[in-house]
């Protein structure tokens, strides 16, 4: 699946996007964030407080219990501050 990072999530991880193939036990968006936290210190810093992280699956806002499919595009980012 394709991951996109924005704002300070992107800055802490150090890249704007990547392709990943998580293990089979990563079924939901919440699982994915927990799995990403273990991938290195940048990821751990980005997702230290998963409660503030927002996500979109295929450009639709989604909650942590959203189930994922291999072809999904998942964006992870902080709360929006537009306007």
């Amino acid at each position, binding site marked *: 699946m394709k991951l996109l990072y*924005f704002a300070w999530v992107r800055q802490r991880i150090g890249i704007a996007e990547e392709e990943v193939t998580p293990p089979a036990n990563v079924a939901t968006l919440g699982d994915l964030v927990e799995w990403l936290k273990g991938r290195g210190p940048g990821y751990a810093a980005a997702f230290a407080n998963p409660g503030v992280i927002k996500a979109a699956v295929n450009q639709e806002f989604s909650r942590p219990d959203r189930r994922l499919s291999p072809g999904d595009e998942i*964006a992870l980012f902080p709360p929006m501050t537009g306007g």
Partner: protein
Amino acid sequence: MIRVQAEDFDVGDEIDRLTSGRTHIGGIATFLGLVRDMAKGRPVTAMTLEHFPGMTEKELAKIEVEAQERWPLDATLIIHRYGRLAPGDRIVFVAAASAHREAAFEACMFLVDYLKTRAPFWKLEEGAAGAEWVEARESDDLARARWEADSSLAKRVRPA
């Protein structure tokens, strides 16, 4: 109409385009957001707006449809810039045109409240102490929640 762009825009031209040939429009309420030179008491020297290309346009289009369902509007416009801006620069412009001024005002406020919390934009402020991401304001979430809890406002201005 939705526009997400790096370029600046001309407010007068935008309003003219929105209203030209539509002489049933009685009023246009607009909001223009500018980069402020201060944030939390500290000087701001620049602001960079990041967004999620593709999703931003989709979200803005949804917000616009929602406003048009709630109020009797003749036209709406949302322009939001991205990229690096200086204090005083235009960031966002929202316009709502209606035969009824109450509908125009309320739709414009609704669009701005939603933009602040639902469109995938993020602001990075630069100052003497370096660059810092703007934190979401709780009051913005409250402003948006007001519209979700209370659809009576929309009913009040919709013609019977």
